[in-house]
């Protein structure tokens, strides 16, 4: 066995939507076949499958997604298992696949992120999402996932005397870019006024400051240097150059500071180091803005802004495609959509799209290095994946 570099050989994804006609297995199979086609790899060459998913057990009554997908893809016999880290499941699956190739155990693996929320009514989906938190002492109190993030929002506004209208701009930003992404759930712009007048979900978080509920699946084919040679020359080549996971104290009441997530700081520093890059080298960024304020906090924790100033990057236009740090250029969680356990894989697909120069109207000129930050719970898990165009 040898330590190999890890390459993104193929990407694929379904549109994020309310997929009434497709089950969770159909969505997984669709994105998988899409990624295999893109990689130009026969499915029989896949040695292992990692499925990122959070709530299939609760929402579909279906666990054991690894083996299910293997059969549904027509490759029984392959190594396959589900990876779960709440909303960070997709990123965690990418990380596990990265380790599998990096270690030399496998040369060709498939990563699939999937979530299907519309099989349930909204309150059941709300139940499923709070399972990311402490069931016995947090969910017990009637806390919804939005409510916990609302406490973080309040803490941020108070500590930094920030204004909600500045932070809510994140939603406007995401929608602007989703408008040009055919796979986005809400491909249309919204105004700041619409965001600030939308219904209150948990004060101060309004509906349009929250990622929507939707279904979707994204997939990646990762391969080793050895496999890459077999596949022959490619015009463009993307390396998964760094991949790291970190955990933060599980529940917000146990944390000293609600306005920073130490797991983002730790995971990103490790991933930067692995990839040999610094924040200033990142051309395209995907942050896990499940709620606007979290997007702002992530910008700070990733090293792009001083504490309490992340919202200024938004206001100054630095997150635009021609800005200093082009962020959520395919619509982010707010408007591309947030099919929970699939999000981390969508993010990596979208970063790869940018680095390959295939982002259409949202293309960031000359993008060479990209970072995807995927978060589970209220920061209980953070996964950071760094991609580089090497050719």
């Amino acid at each position, binding site marked *: 066995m040898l330590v190999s570099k890890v390459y993104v050989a193929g990407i694929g994804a379904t549109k994020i939507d309310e997929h009434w006609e497709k089950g969770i297995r159909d969505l997984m199979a669709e994105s998988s076949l899409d990624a295999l086609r893109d990689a130009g790899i026969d499915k029989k060459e896949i040695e292992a499958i990692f499925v990122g998913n959070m709530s299939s057990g609760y929402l579909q009554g279906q666990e054991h997604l690894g083996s299910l997908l293997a059969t549904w893809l027509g490759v029984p016999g392959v190594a396959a298992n589900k990876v779960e880290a709440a909303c960070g499941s997709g990123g965690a699956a990418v990380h596990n696949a990265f380790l599998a190739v990096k270690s030399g155990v496998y040369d060709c693996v498939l990563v699939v992120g999937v979530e299907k929320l519309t099989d349930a009514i909204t309150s059941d989906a*709300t139940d499923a999402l709070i399972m990311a938190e402490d069931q016995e002492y947090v*969910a017990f109190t009637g806390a919804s996932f*939005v*409510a916990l993030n609302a406490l973080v929002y309040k803490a941020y506004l108070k500590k930094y005397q920030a204004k909600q209208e500045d932070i809510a701009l994140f939603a406007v930003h995401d929608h602007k870019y989703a408008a040009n992404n055919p796979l986005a759930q809400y491909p249309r712009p919204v105004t700041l006024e619409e965001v600030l007048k939308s219904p209150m979900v*948990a*004060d101060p978080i309004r509906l349009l400051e929250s990622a929507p509920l939707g279904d979707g699946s994204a997939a990646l084919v990762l391969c080793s240097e050895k496999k890459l040679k077999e596949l022959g020359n490619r015009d463009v080549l993307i390396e998964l150059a760094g991949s790291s996971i970190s955990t933060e104290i599980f529940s917000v009441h*146990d944390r000293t500071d609600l306005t920073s997530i130490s797991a983002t700081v730790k995971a990103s520093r490790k991933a930067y180091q692995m990839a040999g890059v610094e924040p200033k080298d990142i051309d395209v960024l995907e942050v896990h803005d499940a709620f606007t304020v979290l997007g702002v906090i992530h910008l700070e924790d990733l090293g792009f802004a001083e504490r309490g100033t992340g919202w200024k990057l938004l206001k100054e236009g630095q997150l635009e495609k021609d800005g200093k740090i082009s962020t959520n250029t395919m619509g982010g969680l707010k408007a591309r959509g947030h099919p929970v356990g699939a999000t981390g894989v969508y993010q990596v697909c979208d970063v790869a799209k940018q680095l390959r120069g295939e982002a259409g109207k949202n293309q960031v000129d000359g993008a060479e290095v990209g970072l995807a930050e995927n978060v589970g719970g209220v920061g209980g898990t953070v996964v950071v994946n760094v991609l580089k165009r090497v050719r």
Partner: protein
Amino acid sequence: MAYMRSVPRAWRERKIKYQLLGGKCRDCGKSFYPYRQVCPACGSTNVEQVKLPERGVIEHFTVVRTPPTEFKEYAPYVLALVRLEDGTRVLAQVTDVEPDEVYEGMEVEVVFRKYREQGPDGIIEYGIKFRPVR
């Protein structure tokens, strides 16, 4: 419903939830709720179980308007991070007050209340909520 019906679970949690039992780390001094064997701040196992004070101040709060299924009938309700007199932070509902009357810095005290039912045939779960000090 999200919460699986379980009598043993509610039974074993009763002391900590009913009596507000926390932990205090003898090494770093951190106090926390609920009680557990290992300090969440420093990782020490030198932790004693303590009865936490019954008064505190609301640090941050929100109003839950789109609740999980089993709390549907109670919405809107106030959920708060309360800092107890000894500095321990507890997450709980605030009761006996209208949501628009709650403010950061409000002094509150512990009260024993119903939280949720484990379905129509399941047991009823109780715990600590906070109410304004009168």
